[in-house]
């Protein structure tokens, strides 16, 4: 959680210094949800996220330097600078996005869960991989969400739907947009258990997550978990955040998940304070190192423009000499003519 928070704070700094650009959506305040769920997953389990995906990537194990380099648009980023803030992908860590359209990740996550079931039942491989899909309160009014609740329940797919209800979709309050604001209640009409949990308390989230993930792994089907959480910053770094009441912000600030966990640890004397300070220092150094790494990394070479459009580059077709265009040595020199 601390890594997530430090990382996001550093992102804000870098953005205002002009090193990061475009749309950047920070996760400050919601760390308990990411940590609570993702730290229970194995490497083989899948995480699907939205545009607010930096911390999901970090929790899943993508190195901070790779994420930072990606945000800077450098070729050493996890997607070689081609994805950006909103499109974090890592095959190695089974983080398959990073989607900018809200609701887009839900069917893809359902598909990943489907592939897990297919492997087990049709290909007869031993596969009990679980998929966790993260999305927000605004997404729960989107058609794709309901389509996938239906199909996940119908086919009993190993998926956990996690709603990060931070009460605001850019400037649209959840209560203004939703006829029945209790999202967890939308699971049972589809035959999916709905669970409501305090998303500012990482230990409570972890309890719920354990159950939901175990349920999916057993083959009992999907779960819908609504986490009440809050984002301390605006929707993105370009959001002036004028519509939210300062009292509301103060209320949630006082329930900061990191501070809460720290207090809990100290109250119960689980770990000496010096150790916590050491962890904080480590994280600071890690994030600084990530920034240095990203700064010193090269920007993508010109030839990278045309790479990776297709897995089979013959998809670029046939050149005027009658041979496959991708076999032309000048092909990746990067002109718009192709």
């Amino acid at each position: 959680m601390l890594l997530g928070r430090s990382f996001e704070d550093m992102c804000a700094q870098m953005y205002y210094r002009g090193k990061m650009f475009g749309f950047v959506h920070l996760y400050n305040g919601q760390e308990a949800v990411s940590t609570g769920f993702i730290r229970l997953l194995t490497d083989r389990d899948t995480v699907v996220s939205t545009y607010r995906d930096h911390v999901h990537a970090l929790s899943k194990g993508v190195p901070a330097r790779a994420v930072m380099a990606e945000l800077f648009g450098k070729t050493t980023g996890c997607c070689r600078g081609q994805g950006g803030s909103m499109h974090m992908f890592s095959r190695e860590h089974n983080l398959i996005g990073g989607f900018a359209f809200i609701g887009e990740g839900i069917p893809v996550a359902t598909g990943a869960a489907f592939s897990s079931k297919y492997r087990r039942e049709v290909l007869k491989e031993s596969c009990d991989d679980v998929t966790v899909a993260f999305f927000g309160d605004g997404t729960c009014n989107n058609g794709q969400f309901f389509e996938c609740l239906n199909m996940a329940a119908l086919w009993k797919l190993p998926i956990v739907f996690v709603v990060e209800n931070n009460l605001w979709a850019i400037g649209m309050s959840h209560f203004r947009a939703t006829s029945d604001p209790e999202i967890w209640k939308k699971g049972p009409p589809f035959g999916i258990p709905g669970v409501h949990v305090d998303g500012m308390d990482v230990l409570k989230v972890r309890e719920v997550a354990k159950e939901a993930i175990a349920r999916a792994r057993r083959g009992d089907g999907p779960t819908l978990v609504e986490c009440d959480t809050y984002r301390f910053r605006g929707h993105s770094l370009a959001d002036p955040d004028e519509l939210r009441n300062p009292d509301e912000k103060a209320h949630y600030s006082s329930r900061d998940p990191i501070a809460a966990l720290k207090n809990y640890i100290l109250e119960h004397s689980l770990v000496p304070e010096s150790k916590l300070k050491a962890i904080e220092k480590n994280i600071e150094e890690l994030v600084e190192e990530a920034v240095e790494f990203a700064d010193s990394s090269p920007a993508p070479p010109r030839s990278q423009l045309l790479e990776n459009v297709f897995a089979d580059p013959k998809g670029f077709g046939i050149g005027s000499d009658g041979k496959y265009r991708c076999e032309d040595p000048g092909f990746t020199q990067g002109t718009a003519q192709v």
Partner: protein
Amino acid sequence: MLSFTRRKVLCADFIASAKNVTFLSKTVLGKAFERTPMAASASTRKFSTSHKEMTVRDALNSALDEEMAADPKVFLMGEEVGEYQGAYKISKGLLDKYGPERVIDTPITEAGFTGIGVGAAYYGLRPIIEFMTFNFSMQAIDHIINSAAKSNYMSAGQISVPIVFRGPNGAAAGVAAQHSQCYAAWYGSCPGLKVLSPYSSEDARGLLKSAIRDPDPVIFLENEILYGESFPVSAEVLDSSFSIPIGKAKIEREGKDVSITAFSKMVGFSLQAAEILAKDGISAEVINLRSIRPLDRAMINASVRKTNRLVTVEEGFPQHGVGAEICASVIEESFEYLDAPVERIAGADVPMPYAPNLERLAVPQVEDIVRAAKRACYRVVPNSAAA
């Protein structure tokens, strides 16, 4: 300049043998390019290869069957593909053969099941997503473009999407505006997609097999009217390892005076138009595009450099259509070779009407292609033998 009388003699033979279109096997085409007289090679071929007839529907069904048998990761998903045997019976018999885990009937949730297919493809399965018609793909177009086409790029090659989206495209008969749109131009403009449009049974079989084996997202645009049409197929086509490369067009009929490009049903119309033109002494070269993206610009340009005139034919809306792209490509690469402005034949710039007489007017007919070709031929300042 050929004199028309001499050309008429050649054309008569050509028409006689063109009735049994045997230009299907690659060897015949090879022979054609070696400049042996078309008539002779076609008539010898006619007797030496055995001809089975196959409908496009059976061709697609057999291709699906063989690919599903060959690779257990291939599965079919869509509305009515299982128990109903396919909305157009393309997937007939597959449910019984492969079971409900591999032939999956979905609820009416295009966005949902298309996304599910994409997610499964991320993990190495090979889904074939069937849209009842491509008009319904508009409900899922976000997934086709944003999570399928763009993923390999956004993830810098980490995640490839070996998925096929198939279904009937374009106008059928009397199904009106919301069921009749042609999507070749829209999908053809999107990087990251491969877009195919077969005409004959050979095309259908070969291209569908290539599409299923391809590691990238492929849009496979079929045509409902062609499903029932029969075409002769050679033994090579019937072999289970048969496939046609993506990105190469095919010359269905060789000619010298005007190039006509078409895809899907319009290839048939163009071939009929070519016959009519031949009677008037115009030898038309009909190019079956087969692949909308990537477009076989090399072959189109080579043909235009030979004939110096171009007519593009498509069923879809004219603005920003496939013909517009071909026209631009030819002007960019073969401008000096053009003897006449490019003629574009496309559907009318209106949503498809219902009344049958209006529907006929809204879609290109053979006469339209003939007129366009004649315009292309006579547009040049008349000192040619405009007999």
